[in-house]
């Protein structure tokens, strides 16, 4: 593939696409708003194509597992393909708003998601237990802060322990918020710098190259 196709054209396209939302935000130029909407629609359409691409990738991978009877894998792959076919057929022929599709979603997908989500409680407990072992000053501070928050949020303890609410509010509004704002300012600047590098063709990861020179 020529250098022009591989390097220059994608950079120019990225630059122009990035310039449009900036122009729309800062400048009163007629036509930028509709053009940006069109661009966003293209993005949605491309994402839709990519989803089909993902589904094809998934079907090939798991289809092969089923055909090869891969140990510890093929029953899961078969159930995934079955579920994909079921949801696709019902969704395409009866529409996602149909009672049948809604029933499938509400009786399978929704409870499964809720189950996975609720298992977060166990993951959290296990992770907090490990991190709460006071090994140095930092973990000691973390333990103290956690105890205050737990005491505040346990209804009975909050009544019994004096100043639990005040200490928790101070931690939350002063310490936690100020640290979080610092992190967010840094992250925003990082995102802007990455945006500038991307617009100028210096951030080349998304083009399949590690450095500008490749």
């Amino acid at each position, binding site marked *: 593939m020529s250098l022009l196709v591989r390097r220059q054209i994608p950079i120019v396209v990225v630059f122009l696409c990035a310039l449009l939302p900036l122009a729309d935000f800062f400048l009163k130029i007629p036509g930028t708003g509709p053009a940006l909407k069109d661009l*966003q629609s293209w993005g949605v359409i491309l994402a839709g194509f990519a989803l089909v*691409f993902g589904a094809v990738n998934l079907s090939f991978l798991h289809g092969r597992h089923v055909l090869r009877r891969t140990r510890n894998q093929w029953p*899961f792959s078969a159930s995934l393909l079955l579920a994909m076919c079921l949801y696709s057929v019902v969704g395409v022929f009866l529409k996602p708003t149909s009672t049948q599709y809604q029933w499938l979603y509400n009786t399978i997908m929704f409870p499964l998601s809720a189950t996975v989500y609720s298992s977060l409680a166990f993951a959290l407990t296990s992770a907090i237990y490990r991190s709460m072992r006071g090994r140095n000053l930092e973990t000691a501070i973390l333990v103290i802060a956690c105890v205050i928050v737990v005491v505040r949020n346990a209804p009975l303890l909050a009544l019994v322990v004096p100043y639990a609410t005040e200490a928790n509010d101070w931690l939350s509004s002063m310490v936690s918020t100020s640290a979080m704002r610092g992190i967010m*300012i840094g992250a925003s600047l*990082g995102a802007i710098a990455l945006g500038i590098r991307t617009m100028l063709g210096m951030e080349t990861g998304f083009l399949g190259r590690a450095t500008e020179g490749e």
Partner: protein
Amino acid sequence: MLYSGRIFYLVMLVIFWVLTLSGIQIARRGKIPEFRKLAGLEALHEMVGRAAEMNKSIHFSTGDGGALTGTEAPQVVAGLAVLGYVASLAARYGVKLTYSVFVPEAIPIATDLMRQAYVKEGKADLFNAEEQIRFLSNTDMAFASAVQGIAERERPAASIMLGPFYGPAMLQAEAFKRVGSIQLAGTARGYHIPYLAIIADYTLIGEEIFAAGAYVSKDPTQMGSIRGQDLAKIVIIALTVLAVVAAAAGSRAISSLFKI
């Protein structure tokens, strides 16, 4: 011509551009900035080496949320930059690298990126896109469940999670912890950083993930832009201090700037 109330933001953006470009120019002239050591990125060699010794794979993920067309896109792009580097290391040491995809738009990009890395290392025959790049789901709970399954079945030696991560990321990280994988996790989603920090062996916080690509590539232009970013940070800190002092003195001069 310009929207009122946004002029100051435009001025700030222009200042960031100028600082970033001057940082890049300085780096191109040979004055490459020194980076403080980021333990997580320094550990990438150790992670790949560990996987090679144990004859196990490495699992990579660029988030369980967002899209390449949304506000989380920079984080996905930052994660992809590190993916390319890890793919190079994996190819060099003959380690299997699997990339679990949440954002389907990333599949062609990751395929190209990983193929280039394997070709560059002269190991093109080791790369199998269908086996190594797996789209799991674009809903967070299903993605987390699938990654947990992969962790239990494949028991990778290392897990790298860089990108926009939400609540279920903790389930993934905990699953990798359970199977003994060494972990590097990073996100710019402030609310979810603590969850990853208490589980992962190494954590990249906020802006560090955006600098990760520059850090691992050692590319002077990318590293120069980080110097510009640091200068922009100094401008922000100076403005904040000025605003605090002005507010304490009863003046609203600085805060009124934001309304221009």
